[in-house]
């Protein structure tokens, strides 16, 4: 290590403070509900070799995909004052709504690293409002694809590029404001890193970059070493690709060998016609999420966390698809299933540490106006967290790859022609067990205008499983106008139609007979269980 124990800790605080400040600027400035309310965005600092040195933690799904984006910009040999924009899932992106801006950190005319901001914009064009069409079969249907494009040159926004982007999206004012907020966050990174270099000197900051990476790597390696060596397998399925309902298998083999882990998805289905394909960086994000959860969440997220982790998936498979497959569901739903399956494999090695399965879906609900009120509403709905080795699963929370906030009902009803009818916990939806699985949610919305509804959901057929004798959870259910509809649905509705989503619970942990009677009584009195 090139820094002593004290300087390491001091500089680590300073670097992650910068990433957090970038996030603050972005979230406060943005217009998209996805960014400002749900915080579906990430900010990070990279060194000149494209290694992550600090990240603000808002959402895990961007973890593995940021390095690819920085690499694509490095290949372009950027100049000071430039900023690049991209969203191409086949070249540094995740799915099209996630728009990334990378700008070099320039100090005294030298590029010391990169600042990166990635945010899920409210709309990026394509066949449906919100750019998450359930039935897409090619990426061209999903929206505007941006390869690495220079958006800012020598400090000035290229109005040609900007107008091209804005002409291809549904809410251009919102896009412009979101991009502006991203650029402000990138600027903030530049300013703060320059101040750091001013205080500590160039050499010391470069040493700090190395040191924080080594530090995270060492701690991750030490943690991996405590997991029993071996090869662990798990299998699960997705419930259709939006074109057909056919189950899509995901297979994983996790090999722990001393201080390293290899995660291989051989045996997983080939890429599908619909939009459930997940580019490899998305699968990597899901794996990194699990590695962080099973090692020590206190380890700061840098490139070092991921150096001991190798991830592979066959080319042309669901988790490493080729152009021009549709991918928008991969980021939000396939990533959740990958998380489940990798956690299940780790549970083979660490049976006393891994919870039962959580709801395993984001319950994406997208509603877009078809009349003069041209609105786009997007929300993900929480559900049950799996029962845990020493406590019940959480009721009504976001799980796995997301932790976005809801849109307040009073904000939603003020901004959209919609009425929320119900927002409650869903009794009996968690699996019984020594430690009960968390409850799902019922959210019911009446749309007061003609609209198009897209539901992109999972766990409507295959239950979130209990473990070690715990019961499985209830599956989710979707209703449009009182009629039950499939997990992935796009449908035109008339004004006055009610859409109801009942989200899955979490599986139970351990034998239900071992559940303490006071816990059972508390559940019954509190209306969390009704049947038993």
């Amino acid at each position, binding site marked *: 290590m090139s820094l002593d124990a004290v300087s390491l*800790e001091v500089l680590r605080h300073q670097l992650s403070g910068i990433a957090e*400040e970038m996030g603050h*600027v972005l979230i406060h400035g943005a*217009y998209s509900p996805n960014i400002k309310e749900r915080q579906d965005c990430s900010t990070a600092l990279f060194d000149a070799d494209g290694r992550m040195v600090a990240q603000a933690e808002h959402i895990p799904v961007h973890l593995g995909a940021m390095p690819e984006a920085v690499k694509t910009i490095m290949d372009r040999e950027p100049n000071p004052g430039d900023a690049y924009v991209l969203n191409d899932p086949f070249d540094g992106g995740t799915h099209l709504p996630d728009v990334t801006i990378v700008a070099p950190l320039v100090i005294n005319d030298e590029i010391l690293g990169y600042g990166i901001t990635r945010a899920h914009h409210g709309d990026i064009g394509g066949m449906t409002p919100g750019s998450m069409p359930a039935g897409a079969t090619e990426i061209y249907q999903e929206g505007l694809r941006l390869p690495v494009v220079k958006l800012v040159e020598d400090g000035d926004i290229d109005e040609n590029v900007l107008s091209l982007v804005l002409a291809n999206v549904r809410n251009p004012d919102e896009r412009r404001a979101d991009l502006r907020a991203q650029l402000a966050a990138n600027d903030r990174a530049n300013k703060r890193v320059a101040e750091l270099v001013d205080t500590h000197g160039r050499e010391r900051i470069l040493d700090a970059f190395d040191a924080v990476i080594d530090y995270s790597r*060492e701690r991750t390696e030490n943690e991996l070493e405590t997991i029993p060596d071996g090869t662990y397998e798990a299998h699960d399925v997705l419930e259709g690709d939006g074109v057909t309902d056919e189950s899509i298998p995901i297979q994983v083999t996790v090999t722990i060998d001393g201080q390293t882990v290899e995660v291989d998805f051989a045996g997983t289905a080939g890429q599908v016609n619909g939009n459930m394909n997940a580019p490899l960086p998305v699968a990597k994000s899901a794996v990194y999420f699990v590695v962080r959860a099973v090692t020590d969440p206190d380890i700061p997220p840098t490139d070092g966390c991921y150096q001991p982790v190798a991830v592979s998936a066959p080319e042309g498979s669901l988790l490493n698809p080729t152009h021009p497959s549709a991918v928008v569901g991969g980021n939000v739903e396939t990533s959740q299933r990958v998380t489940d399956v990798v956690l299940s494999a780790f549970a083979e090695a660490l049976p006393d540490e891994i919870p039962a399965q959580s709801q395993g879906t984001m319950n994406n609900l997208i509603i877009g106006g078809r009349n003069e009120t041209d609105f786009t509403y997007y929300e993900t709905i929480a559900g049950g967290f799996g029962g845990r080795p020493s406590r019940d699963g959480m009721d009504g929370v976001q799980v796995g790859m997301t932790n976005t906030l809801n849109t307040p009902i*009073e904000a939603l009803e003020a901004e959209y022609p919609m009425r929320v009818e119900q927002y409650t916990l869903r009794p009996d939806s968690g699996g019984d067990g020594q430690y009960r699985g968390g409850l799902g949610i019922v959210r*019911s919305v009446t749309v007061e205008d003609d609209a198009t509804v897209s539901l992109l959901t999972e766990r409507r057929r295959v239950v979130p499983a209990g473990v070690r004798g715990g019961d499985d959870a209830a599956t989710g259910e979707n209703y449009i106008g009182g009629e039950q509809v499939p997990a992935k649905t796009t449908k035109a509705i008339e004004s006055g139609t009610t859409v109801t989503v009942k989200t899955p619970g979490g599986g139970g942990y351990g034998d239900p007979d071992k559940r303490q009677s006071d816990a059972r009584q508390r559940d019954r009195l509190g209306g969390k269980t009704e049947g038993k």
Partner: protein
Amino acid sequence: MVASPHVSVDVGGTFTDVALMTESGLVTAKVPSTEEQSEGVLSGIRKACERANLRPEDINAFTHAMTVSVNALLERKGAETALVTTDGFRDVLEIGRQTRPSLYDLDAEQTSPLVSRRNRFEIDERTTTDGVENPVNKEDVYALAEELEDAESVAISLLHSYTDGENESTVAEILRERLDAPVSVSHEVLSAFREYERTSTTVADAYVRPAIDSYLGELTSQAERVGIPAPQVMQSNGGIADADTVRKHAVTTVMSGPAAGVVGAAASAERSVDSTAFEGFVTFDMGGTSSDVSLVQDGEIARTTNGNVGGHPIATPMVDVTTVGSGGGSVAWVDAGGALRVGPESAGADPGPACYNRGGTQPTVTDANLVLGYIGEGATLGGEVSLNADAAHKALASLAEEAGLNSAREAASGVYRVANAKMTRAIRSVTVERGYDPREFGLVAFGGAGPMHATALAERLEIDCVIVPLAGGVLSAYGLLGADEQHDAMRTYRTRLTETRPDELEAMYDELTADACSELTRSEEPTVERTADLRYAGQSFELEVSVDDPISIETVQERFGAAHERAYGYQMNEPVEIVTLRVAASIENEVPPTSYTGGDDTPARERSGVFDESRQSVPVYVRNRLAPSSRIEGPAVVEDDESTIVVRPDWTGIVQPDGTMVLERGEIA
């Protein structure tokens, strides 16, 4: 000006501090806090009166900061509360914003709501953004009243009540008539949109209300018995209000204690330096387990409406305090990656730091300060234990070994630097993230450990002026003496700035002003401050800007643009939206000047301390012996009863007429 003699009492976790201002000057007293807080309050007042040779019945004013409500919240010892919500929404309180508490910790615990599901009741009604659509059926409320018979308090929070509170009022009227329990109504507690935050605030109000009510009732009658006026209570917003008002707005007291501290620190700073030379002050209170950082500008404490106490959002205005888990008792350790860490674990008071010699062996920040010579061996830090340097040395030597450092001294320097880095980050987040440059601020340091770290923090932040008030322990009580009486009124009013009419806004401000002023108890002309929370139409976070009387839409627009530029680095040519209108009505109160004597500016002794990376002999002064305008050149250490001021090289401390020490860096006149 408040009548004299004036007593103020601040109840803390360990001590109850009293400041008594009479015509002949300030008298302070300190007594142990008691389980029933009013007992300690009264015994403290008696003690101060004895010292001042005054009878309690001569006291003409009584101000008070306490921890009754925050304790009820944090220890979950509030009332058995029932919640009434709109049909279909009883779980809003529990679902919250539907996030889990930690991204990666699969075993994280969720904060459970203050009202369990079985005590949450739904009622058939609906209000929309346009007003009441489905009125409440009174028969339903009569039936509900029967179900609520056992509740100790009731919170009512119906959807969109901030636009029209009629349905809430109907329910409240009947429940108040039929039940003995106090009823908190959301549009009265917080007339703001966002149902979860409003419900959480209203529930917290109902939850702490019986405790506040009985405490203030008891204290008032005890005070009456000895002839003292009823207490005026410090609210979370930094202003005081009379006991009867506070009993009706219990949730406004959850930050009573911290607000008093910040107000006291601000008052001390304003008195000691020319505040116009600064953008504002950063207050820094470092105690045993944590440090609190806050901002003061133009004599006003920074306030937030995004507060959170014990995991429960509270959106009524409160002092904006950022807390970091490093204090004097924070434990230093080496983690699996070889980094030297400080906290969050704390050795607490028992066993306490290794140097307490009470069985603690883990090195703490206090141990490091002792090894560095910033605290003297044998110092008592407020009274109880005498510090043992050998024990501290031993603990840091073993830390050094683990961390691969050469000596206990090096480890101690490391602990000091890491603790400072954490606190610097907190100070940066309250300044730079809001668009302020810390270099333009003064740093006010207090608390048992604050003055030991202040000059080092100031150097990191390039702050050139540090202010250390006298009587750190009774600073809050002292602050209470001069606190303004203040009441807030607010209302959500969402509209485009360019589409609103000035007369419409004026009418609303008039209403809010009347509302805020109606609660003032003194007859002087109040100062009325009008502000609005604005954002670009499309954003979710507002910036508060001041609004002139009469209103000028252009000025408001310009101020918002400037505030946005400062906070985020840019402004846009996009429509701006008003979200909330606010009025604060206050009656100012002068802090009485204190006299201070002392006459000796020679060092009491010399001690070896670590400065500029090397151990050297430095002078040690006794603070309460120093005469006004004494100059202390660093490196030096100034000891007082509860803390020590570390004067680093290149700093000069000057004693002010009231005993406050102002430290300045570099060449000074």
